Each structure stands twice: as structure tokens, then as C-alpha cells.
């Protein structure tokens, strides 16, 4: 783990949607410690500030992709970076998706909006070694068709099952309309032998987890990725506290049986 930001070069920049970009970054000097799917980096936009951003692809252990949605000052500055630009990177931080728990089981990968970004390296891991896992289902929900991420990669996720749904179809959209949980009906999994990985807005994760439990998936086999404001990312400043957890250290990936009692805790 690194305490000072490592200068990294943006080696590729790809527009995903009107407000979201994927930046591929590479350390200029020594490599960062290896990231695992689900972990995050603190990305520093020089002169603007630093924010937590999940790793959305791990390329050969040293190149990292980050998918950033521009919502405020720092994310907008990152969004504005071009190939050849510089970004400071600290990390890896936080807990990873527990893929070992999914060995031999069916997988449900369920994303809402930009929640697909931290799940993509997990999908990569499963696709790289499909025999270690049961059936893979990738279910993604977005606001509109124009907000869907990684659309060119989706065909590769369709076996055995992948589907996307949107809240508001635009004219010409022939896909599904509705919340992401409606896709569960068509997914192929045996609830008692399934591990679910869920990332999206907290309300969506709660609704999804409840739907999964109703269908027979055990709460301890549901992993969610939680977000709280972060500053130090090293478990010292307390900014990311959720009940007894410091999410930069004990999260962002948390099992639902541990997260559920905390998700109704109001933030101060």
C-alpha cells in the first residue's frame, strides 16, 4: 500500500457515456501493488483533489482501468483528462469481491448504473476460468439506453446469461424496461448454490438483496459494495464510518448479512 500518490500516465481514454469515461493508467515508475476486483484507488487530479474510484479492469497486473462519472469538482477534472495526461494514484485499498466463495457456485453479478464498473474485473476473473464457477449471470440496470456502460463487451457476457434493462427507454430501444431485479426471473441459477455480487445505489442494493433472499439466496452469500465519503482511505480519519465498520478498510465489499443492519443507520 502506498501513502503518497504514484504519478501515473493516462495511456488510454474512452468515452463510455455523455458523463462517464474510462481511463487506463500506468505507473510512470515502480508498479503499484496488485489490485484485486472490488478494490479501489484514491485518484488525485493534480491541483484539484482526490477521490476514491474502483478499479474497473486490471490489465496484466500493472495497468489499471478506472471508470469515472463526472459529478463534482474532482471527478469532472478526471473526466477531462486526455491520453498522455497525469493522475496520482494511491492504492490498492479496501476489501475485494470474495470470488473464492463463488467457486463451484452459480454467480449473479447485478449492477445498477456505474455499479457495473467495480464488477467488471470480477466478470473478467470468472470468464478467464469458467470451469471454476457455475453459471454466470450478468444483470445490469441503467437509467436510459445512453447510460449503459461497456455495451460492446456485453455480447461476451451473454453466455450463459446476460441482460440489461433501462428505466426510461428512448425511441428505438428494443431491450427490456424496468428495474434490474425483474431480470432475475430469467436468470439461470439455483438459489441454494448461488453467490451474488451487487453494486449500485444503496436503495437498489437493498431491494436486490431482499429479492434474492426471497428467492432463497442466503444473506451471507450476497456481497454488496458500499460507498461513503472517504478521505485518508487508510482507516485513520473516520470519514467513512458505517456503524462499527470503516469502509475504506473493512469495505467497500461487505457481506449483506453484516451490511443489512447498518444500512438503515442514518448518516450524521
Amino acid at each position, binding site marked *: 500500500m502506498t501513502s503518497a500518490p504514484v504519478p501515473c500516465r493516462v495511456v488510454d481514454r474512452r468515452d463510455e457515456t455523455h458523463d462517464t469515461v474510462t481511463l487506463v493508467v500506468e505507473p510512470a515508475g515502480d508498479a503499484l501493488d496488485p489490485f484485486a476486483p472490488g478494490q479501489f484507488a484514491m485518484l488525485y487530479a493534480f491541483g484539484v483533489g482526490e477521490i476514491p474510484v474502483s478499479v474497473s479492469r486490471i490489465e496484466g497486473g500493472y495497468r489499471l482501468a478506472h471508470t469515472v462519472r463526472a459529478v463534482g469538482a474532482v471527478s469532472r477534472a478526471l473526466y477531462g483528462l486526455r491520453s498522455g495526461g497525469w493522475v496520482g494514484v494511491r492504492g490498492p485499498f479496501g476489501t475485494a469481491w470474495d470470488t473464492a466463495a463463488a467457486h463451484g457456485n452459480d454467480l449473479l453479478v447485478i449492477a445498477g448504473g456505474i455499479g457495473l464498473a467495480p464488477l467488471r474485473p470480477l466478470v473478467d476473473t470468472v470468464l478467464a476460468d469458467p470451469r471454476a464457477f457455475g453459471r454466470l449471470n450478468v444483470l445490469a440496470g441503467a437509467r436510459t439506453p445512453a447510460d449503459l456502460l461497456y455495451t460492446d463487451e456485453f455480447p461476451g457476457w451473454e453466455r450463459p446469461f446476460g441482460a440489461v434493462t433501462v428505466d426510461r427507454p428512448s425511441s428505438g430501444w428494443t431491450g427490456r424496461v424496468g428495474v434490474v431485479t425483474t431480470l432475475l426471473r430469467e436468470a439461470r441459477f439455483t438459489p441454494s448454490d448461488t453467490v451474488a455480487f451487487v453494486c449500485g445505489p444503496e436503495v*437498489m442494493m437493498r431491494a436486490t438483496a431482499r429479492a434474492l433472499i426471497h428467492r432463497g439466496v442466503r444473506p451471507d452469500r450476497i456481497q454488496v459494495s458500499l460507498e461513503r465519503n472517504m478521505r485518508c482511505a487508510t482507516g485513520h480519519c473516520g470519514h467513512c464510518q458505517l456503524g462499527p465498520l470503516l469502509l475504506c478498510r473493512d469495505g467497500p465489499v461487505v457481506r449483506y448479512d453484516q451490511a443489512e443492519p447498518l444500512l438503515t443507520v442514518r448518516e450524521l
Partner: protein
Amino acid sequence: MTAHPGGPPGEGVLAALTAEHRGRLMALARDVALPGSTRIFEEGEEADRFWIIRSGTVALDIHVPGRGRAVVETVGAGSLLGWSWLCPPRQWHLAAETREPVRAWEFDADAVQDLCAEDTALGLSLVTAVAETIGDRLRATRTRLLDLYGPPGPRGSGAAP
């Protein structure tokens, strides 16, 4: 979902019934195959039947003056299509059109209601299962109204930062 191999996916209306009740209900089912782009019913028409979708998807739409038809939801395999037959005024609130070829079990609403009157235990189970579907759709609609994946801040709810 594979809880009912060879049959409809293992949840929803049929899965909520006992084997005996399912058998009695299924005795009324008609196996239908609908090509893609078939208008199944229109808003305001009499809701005299319902379907349980076996494969394919159906889009539910509503006519918006000046904007044509707006799709509000799609329903797929294992889902109940249509619940307006259950209570007055027994008119479709939305219209339905197949997105792709659809296989479904079709049920005549009068025949099912007669069966429910005759076997009240079956009736209660069926109505409870249909109510669960309606509850699911209500929850889904409320979640969508939150505009969850939209921009953070006042315009959308966003995720708690």
C-alpha cells in the same frame, strides 16, 4: 431459474400454488404462441384473460398524446401478464405487445374466477400470488420513480456518498 425443469421458471404465480391447485388451474390453460410485434391487448379494453409467459418478452405501453406509445415495463419468462381481470372495472390499464415470439399459457378470466369460487382455498392462494406480483411491480415502480441511477443531488437521489 430451473426449479421447474421443462416448465415455467420456478417462481411467480404457478410456483406459489400447491401441486394439486396448480394442476386444477393448468387444466384451464391454453398453450399459445404469439409472433413478435403482436398487440395482445389495448388500454381500456375488457380484461377477460391473462397469461403466464413461458418464453419471450412482452412490452407494456401507454399512449401519451403527442408522443405516441411509451413503453413503461417489459415482462419476461415466468411473469404474470395481466391482473386487471381480477377486480373492477376489469379493463386493461396498459396495452401489451410482444417484443419477440412469445410462448405463454393463456387463461380465461371467467373460468378461473369460477374455479376460485368453487375451490376457495385455491382462490385464496391464487389471489395471494397475483397480489404478490402486483406488490413486486409497485415496489419496482416506486424504485424507478426515485430515478436512482440519475445524476446525484436534487434532480435524482443518487447513492449516499
